[in-house]
């Protein structure tokens, strides 16, 4: 009897407290997500009301699409580059700031600051610096670095984009690593100091292994950050030159809203979702094994 009453009360509470948020979330996130899957099997274009079922045609076309493969390659290489640099720089900065430095709070605040700038503005700033200002620095200094078209060269644009993204987000990785470092147990470190362990050895043998959970979080965040950098790409390079800096999210946007091939773009979204869920599952498993 008692449990029944309790269950009834829980059901009522669920309805009153959780349901309002859940309902909005389902309508505006879960249903669209499912609908994306539905659209991916059609030739929906957002304008024509008659939508035809095309089966797996979109998926077959996606894998033959050179621009899709190009965007996938750009996404993967920028994610890899960004992952390496964001984590290394973030970790080194965190190590430095974890010491007893006088103005460390101000330094932390300054380095983190670009993270709160909006992407459009960051795009403006760096398109101006890399595309406009640099061309004037070359005759003044004669340095070859300034002669290169960092945003107009198809091969170099990848590095420029990752560089700008790093400028914007390295503070983010730094503060996460810093929090991780501050939560580390102090006993192993003290023991190592007593044993006369060298600084470098202490980092590779004690700090890094203990920091593994934070590292996993940061690796995964690096992937999400690169997938989400398309608003920045829009104002920095707009995917160019050509399609050299078009990442998969930007390509989906362009196909859906500029070329009006929504069914086709939906198929790409589904593939992207599957890829991300695979990475997330891998991350969760690695984290679980650690615990």
């Amino acid at each position: 009897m008692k449990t029944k009453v309790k269950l009834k009360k829980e059901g009522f509470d669920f309805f009153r407290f959780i349901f309002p948020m859940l309902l909005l979330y389902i309508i505006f996130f879960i249903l669209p997500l499912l609908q994306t899957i539905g659209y991916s099997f059609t030739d929906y274009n957002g304008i024509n009301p008659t939508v035809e079922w095309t089966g797996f045609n979109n998926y077959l076309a996606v894998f033959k699409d050179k621009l899709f493969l190009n965007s996938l390659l750009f996404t993967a290489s920028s994610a890899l580059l960004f992952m390496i640099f964001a984590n290394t720089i973030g970790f080194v900065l965190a190590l430095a700031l974890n010491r007893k430095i006088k103005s460390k709070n101000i330094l932390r605040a300054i380095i983190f600051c670009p993270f709160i700038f909006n992407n459009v503005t960051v795009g403006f700033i760096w398109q101006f610096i890399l595309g406009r200002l640099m061309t004037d620095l070359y005759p003044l200094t004669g340095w070859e670095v300034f002669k290169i078209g960092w945003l107009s060269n198809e091969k170099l644009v990848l590095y420029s984009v990752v560089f700008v993204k790093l400028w914007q987000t390295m503070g983010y990785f730094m503060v996460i690593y810093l929090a991780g470092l501050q939560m580390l147990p102090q006993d192993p470190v003290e023991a190592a100091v007593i044993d006369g362990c060298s600084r470098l050895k202490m980092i590779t043998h004690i700090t890094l292994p203990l920091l593994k959970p934070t590292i996993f979080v940061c690796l995964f965040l690096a992937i999400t950050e690169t997938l989400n950098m398309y608003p920045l790409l829009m104002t920095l390079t707009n995917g160019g030159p050509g399609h050299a800096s078009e990442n998969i999210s930007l390509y989906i946007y362009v196909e859906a809203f500029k070329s009006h091939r929504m069914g086709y773009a939906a198929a790409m979204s589904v593939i992207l979702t599957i890829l991300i869920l695979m990475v997330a599952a891998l991350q969760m498993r690695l984290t679980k094994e650690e615990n």
Partner: protein
Amino acid sequence: MGERKNVNRMIGTLLWIFCFLMFLPMVFVIINAFKTFGEVVMDPLALPEEWNLNNFKEVMKTGNYVKVFLNTIYFAVLSGTIVLVLSSMAGYKLSRMDNRASKITMLVFMIAMMLPFPVIMIPLATVASKLNISNNLTLVSVLNAGFSCSLAVVMYTQTVRGIPKELDECAYIDGCNGYRFFFSVIFPLLKPMTGTLSVLYFIRYWNDLMLPMILISKKELYTIPLSQLSFYNQFTQNRWNLLLASGLMAIIPVVILYIFTQKTIISGIVAGAVKG
């Protein structure tokens, strides 16, 4: 010991140099935001001949900036309020219930934290135009709240775990009504988390480009990032003086907010990242 102090001082100096180099571009951005277009074209490195606010005034006039500014605040504050009120309620009950239903609900809420926006963008645009949500800032805010609530739900659920359960039971015995109990007892206890989340969400919505971009096409409803982008697409040759001025105008409010709340922002972002 003295050696260690010296090393720390050296690292401190290096970090200051690093910060200086990092913000050197901003110096040029600020300088050029005060120049005329001719001056930018001639020599982007030189100082402006005359320091005045003409560029900022022009952005305000052509971009209808006052309206745009108010739109952005309305959009950010309304979406934020909806998210905070509804997610605190949901988070409260989610942390109190310990059954399969609540666990599954939690997992469902967390899906959105992993996926990038393009994944749901196409149906969202379709649904919004069918339900007449497009070009209605209030409804767009409701939609925005619905799809961006994950972080708040997760963080509130974690926070409520620290509030003793006995408190609920007392109220239950006293026959206190559920909503009233929540808003007069629990919600005030969640104040620190509400503060953190409101700043985080405000910045996120203030900077959001994609959602307004696919749902708002009327110029009088533009938010700041949208109006910046339309400004950018308006000229074939980039008017750097105006673009940089508009960029500064977009980030100044957030930077001011950041100066006063940077500790809250940073600790909130770290907590959100680690839990997500």
